[in-house]
């Protein structure tokens, strides 16, 4: 058996049953990275010796009855904006090419305490915004379904690695959709938790009030297991919330009887073109997949109603102003003194923040409050929301322009702006490339979001289709 064909949860069950060795699992993933990552460029640093040593330790502990739980011995990757003590962390930038942190990100501490094995650091868009950029020291990651195509970003490396079975799961970050966009294009699951649910401490910031950390996994069950380790108050993260953490895996159920789901259709059916212009229509295949996904939710017992919230453009533009202002402030000195160190896309996008005024920022934050209230009001009548993610398949990687992020509708940004939890789940394919929608919920309602995602995933069976590159290596 090739253990890299197993989900993280299935690997965990095999490890617990004694039929899979954590060392064999880590070695299998490391062999895949060595053989295949020249196609995906998903890792910027591979920690082979360290990973095998940690896997040996896990194996000893588990055999001695000291299991740390369902993630013990499961290998992951971390987006290279997560600080790792003694291990280079570049944020995808020339500025930090030799940066070796002296502390770990809190999220990595929690995952390591849960027994996860770090295989390496994953490629990221520069400072989680500037990509795909061919002028940077590390080539941009490629889509595991077709390496000529874009995996989205900025958690591009993690998503490509998870989708290509180069690791069992990983961590991304999401300021406007950087977990859920790559999850959609790479055909995997990605969760942006509620703002405050998962610590951001030790993760390179992009925009303080919009940044979220979360997992990228092959299945919703894997996502629930990682969330169990990640969620919870961090008194040293000023945005962290002291809210009880439920049992996420226990919430997973295959039925959705009585659950009220509001479908936001106007974002993709009308607002995309009205706000961003012709050419931004969802593809016919996407609309069909979205509608089929909604029908599946209904077959599972959910009651779907159409939900109206403010126009998509309003969320996206408020998100952009806040992001640009906060990110510019963060990098201002380097933009002034060392602009040559930035890659082309990162500079062109973030330096626009220099031309926004203080009033622009304050108006964006006031608009944010109005949009939060309007969304909360709409959500009051339902338990969950279903809305579009990227409304077509991944473009070719050489067709992503510098300002594509401003020209195209962002279906993910509303949940950064409102802080609500949102899960990207695959719903189908177009031209052999994945499509996805989002299931969003109430603040700290990750358990309900994961429940609906799990029920949908299991009923649709879409997750069982894997990209050709995920096939076992010869001899495995």
């Amino acid at each position, binding site marked *: 058996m090739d253990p890299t064909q197993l989900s993280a949860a299935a690997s965990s069950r095999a490890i617990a049953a004694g039929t899979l060795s954590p060392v064999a699992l880590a070695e299998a993933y490391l062999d895949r990275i060595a053989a295949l990552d020249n196609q995906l460029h998903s890792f910027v640093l591979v920690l082979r010796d360290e990973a095998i040593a940690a896997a040996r330790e896990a194996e000893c502990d588990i055999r001695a009855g000291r299991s740390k739980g369902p993630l013990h011995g499961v290998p992951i990757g971390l987006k290279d904006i997560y600080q790792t003590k003694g291990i280079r962390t570049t944020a995808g930038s020339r500025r930090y090419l030799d940066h070796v942190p002296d502390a770990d990100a809190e999220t990595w501490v929690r995952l390591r305490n849960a027994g996860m094995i770090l295989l390496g650091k994953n490629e990221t868009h520069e400072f989680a915004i500037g990509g795909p950029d061919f002028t940077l020291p590390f080539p941009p990651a490629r889509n595991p379904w077709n390496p000529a195509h874009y995996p989205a970003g900025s958690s591009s490396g993690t998503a490509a690695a998870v989708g290509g079975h180069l690791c069992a799961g990983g961590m991304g970050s999401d300021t406007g959709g950087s977990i859920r966009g790559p999850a959609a294009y790479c055909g995997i699951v990605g969760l942006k938790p509620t703002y405050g649910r998962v610590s951001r401490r030790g993760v390179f910031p992009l925009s303080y009030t919009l940044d979220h950390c979360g997992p990228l996994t092959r299945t919703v069950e894997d996502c629930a297991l990682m969330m169990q380790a990640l969620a919870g108050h961090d008194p040293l993260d000023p945005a962290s919330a002291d809210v009880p953490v439920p049992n996420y895996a226990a919430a997973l159920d295959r039925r959705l009887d009585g659950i009220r789901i509001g479908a936001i259709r106007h974002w993709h059916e009308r607002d995309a073109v009205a706000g961003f212009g012709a050419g931004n229509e969802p593809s016919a295949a996407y609309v069909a997949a979205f509608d089929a996904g909604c029908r599946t939710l209904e077959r599972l017992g959910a009651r779907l109603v159409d939900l109206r919230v403010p126009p998509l453009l309003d969320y996206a533009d408020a998100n952009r102003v806040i992001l640009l202002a906060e990110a510019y402030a963060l990098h201002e000195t380097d933009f002034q003194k060392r602009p040559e160190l930035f890659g*082309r896309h990162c500079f062109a996008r973030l*330096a626009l923040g220099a031309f926004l005024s203080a009033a622009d920022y304050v108006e964006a934050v006031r608009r944010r409050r109005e949009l939060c209230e309007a969304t909360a009001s709409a959500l009051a009548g339902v338990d969950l929301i279903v809305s579009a993610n990227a409304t077509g398949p991944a473009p070719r990687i050489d067709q992503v322009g510098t*300002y594509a992020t401003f020209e195209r509708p962002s279906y993910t940004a509303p949940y950064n702006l409102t*802080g609500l939890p949102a899960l990207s789940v695959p719903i189908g394919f177009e031209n052999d490339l994945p499509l996805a929608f989002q299931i969003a919920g109430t603040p700290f309602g990750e358990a309900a979001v994961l429940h609906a995602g799990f029920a949908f995933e299991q009923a649709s069976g879409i997750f069982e289709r894997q990209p050709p590159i995920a096939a076992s290596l010869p001899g495995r």
Partner: protein
Amino acid sequence: MSEPISPERFALLAERAGLDPVKIGAERFEELRQGTRFLARFQASVRRTGTGSPRERAVEPAHIFVHPRQTGEG
């Protein structure tokens, strides 16, 4: 879509922001100027109230990053 800021005004605003066109390079400086075509949309969008009037004074900024402390004891 709006036009980008004129080259002359852009040079002035860049200087005021402390951005050095020589360090940045002519090509990247021009690409940044082209990006300013999005700013008018952003600025208008965040000021839109639906009434045609400026936002009411009572509308506070968002404070979603401050969460209530929950003890689980009701």
